[in-house]
């Protein structure tokens, strides 16, 4: 039998040193950002009941979830998403809390990826969820925080805004069954114009024309003028207008060159009911940030409340930071005590640290090996401490 005791499972990794530092640096910066806007951190269990993710509407295909059974033979999953558990939390334990709630999290999600796809099966997300609040005000806040979160990953980011509502409304007007609707959604998501045109070949009227056009409606401000020609009902017009207002508002904060629009954004996790957004940075082939408005999800858990949120893929952002090189700084001083002077050395370390030095406490037997280590690791000062506490300092 093959033993797996020396390997990590596919899709998972040990993170070492600089990789850890890069990841930590991203989560710390994002935490600081969220806290500065008075968001409260929550943590949910890594293990959840399967039913949480398999409600009335199935947002998560079961083949993408890691499953196991608990001691009572109930089906459990490793958390595949952070929004669902937080919706559950907001609808249950926080049900007495007044809205709006501003929550943030830093925790990993797990998913089964296709074999050998080179994707992470476990990765950390940092994100926020705003439960309740005025829709427009919450959308503005979520988007401006999303832009700030992206700037943490890379100054030259793009934040893209869309609205799931266009698709939902148009597909309702078109009057197709849910299976056809899902195919159409998929063709829009993949901008598969040939398949979309073929599928809608037998449909006439403004809804079909608008759906055909949806995936092509992306870019900058010019998109709105083009979209106006296709959004013919009052409610679609109103939706377009409010998206334009949102776009203008966010452009005002972040600069128009950072903000993009894509009316063809239609998320597979169709708990999204309103605005959708994604963040991109150069050099990473998938979005590093993804989020949107989900006004019905809490209702599934028994508390009607509108909500909006996003998550940053910390692994992706960290990879990016790591690729650009994090400067790892060497210790300032190596402190060597040796046999009998261990505690004296530690006391000296304490003093140096309180003076603001970065200190490496030697665990070597001889002063020579300690000095050799200092030389190899670019530590330019070596303090040798005797048992009585006296210190001899040498510059190397």
């Amino acid at each position: 039998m093959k033993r797996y005791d020396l390997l990590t499972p596919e899709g998972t990794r040990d993170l070492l040193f600089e990789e850890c530092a890069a990841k930590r640096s991203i989560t710390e910066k994002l935490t600081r950002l969220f806290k500065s806007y008075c968001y409260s951190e929550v943590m949910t269990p890594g293990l959840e009941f399967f039913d949480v993710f398999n409600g009335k509407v199935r947002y998560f295909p079961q083949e993408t979830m890691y499953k196991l059974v608990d001691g009572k033979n109930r089906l459990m999953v490793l958390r595949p998403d952070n929004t669902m558990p937080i919706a559950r939390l907001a609808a249950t334990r926080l049900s007495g809390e007044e809205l709006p709630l501003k929550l943030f999290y830093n925790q990993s999600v797990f998913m089964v990826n296709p074999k050998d796809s080179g994707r992470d099966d476990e990765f950390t997300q940092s994100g926020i969820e705003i439960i309740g609040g005025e829709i427009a005000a919450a959308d503005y806040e979520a988007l401006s925080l999303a832009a700030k979160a992206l700037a943490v990953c890379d100054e030259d980011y793009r934040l893209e805004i869309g609205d799931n509502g266009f698709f939902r409304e148009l597909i309702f007007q078109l009057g197709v069954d849910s299976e056809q609707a899902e195919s159409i959604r998929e063709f829009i998501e993949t901008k598969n114009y040939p398949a979309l045109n073929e599928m809608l070949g037998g449909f006439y009227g403004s809804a079909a024309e608008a759906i055909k056009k949806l995936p092509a409606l992306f870019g900058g401000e010019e998109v709105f003028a083009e979209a106006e020609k296709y959004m013919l009902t009052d409610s679609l017009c109103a939706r377009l207008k409010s998206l334009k207002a949102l776009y203008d508002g966010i452009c005002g904060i972040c600069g128009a060159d950072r903000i993009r629009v894509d009316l063809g954004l239609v998320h597979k996790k169709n708990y999204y009911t309103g605005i959708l957004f994604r963040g991109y940075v150069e050099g990473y082939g998938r979005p590093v940030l993804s989020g949107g408005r989900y006004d019905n999800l809490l209702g599934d858990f028994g508390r009607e409340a509108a909500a909006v949120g996003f998550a940053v893929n910390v692994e992706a952002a960290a990879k990016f930071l790591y690729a650009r090189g994090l400067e790892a700084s060497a210790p300032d001083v190596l402190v060597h005590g040796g046999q009998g002077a261990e505690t004296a050395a530690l006391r000296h370390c304490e003093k140096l640290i309180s003076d603001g030095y970065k200190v490496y406490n030697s665990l070597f037997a001889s002063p020579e090996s300690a000095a050799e280590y200092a030389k190899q690791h670019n530590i330019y000062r070596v303090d040798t401490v005797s048992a009585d506490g006296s210190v001899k300092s040498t510059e190397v």
Partner: protein
Amino acid sequence: MENRKVRIALTKGRIENKAVDLLEKIGYDVTDLRNKGRRLILSVPNEDIEVVLAKAADVITYVEHGVCDLGVVGKDTIMEHGGKFFEISDLGFGKCRFALAVKKGTDFYMGYGVKTVATKYPEVTRRFFEAKGMDVDIVKIEGSVELAPLVGLSDGIVDIVETGTTLKENGLEVYDTVAPISARLIVNTVSMKLKQERISEIVRLIEENCDDKNN
């Protein structure tokens, strides 16, 4: 990363030749592409474009991961392999179809016994029969699939059929069409957004110049 050229991945072989013809028609200098030797990354002089040659499934992988911005690959590979990217045009060349073929004269859909199907494309086959609500055993074969029903391993095969000559020579015939196939232009989802202007321009040129489109 900032200044990387727009990278197009082409599926080696027939699709590559057609695609190079297409690039030439657009007016790009394809001398390098025609005299490639053993090189795998080729430049297009005077353009901010480079071309990568890869096996079909790898074209998808490279585009999906964003290391190539555009790709030209057959619908057969897209159907079998899946993945997340924009599949924006049907280039019209490389036309053929996925078909279910059986020994001449047999009626595959008759009877209640579970049939065995041999194929190089288990994913496509599985979805086809799932949609039909039919229970079949699927056997993955790497080489000439036509052999499987002849030696009695399977009742039928699902394979790419172009002219049908190989089938005919081996006493097989097409029983049902699974899906039409042609070459597709795919684009990485992030590249499309970050380099919208340049990529839209290339896509427009490609679409305007693929004359096979309506054949």
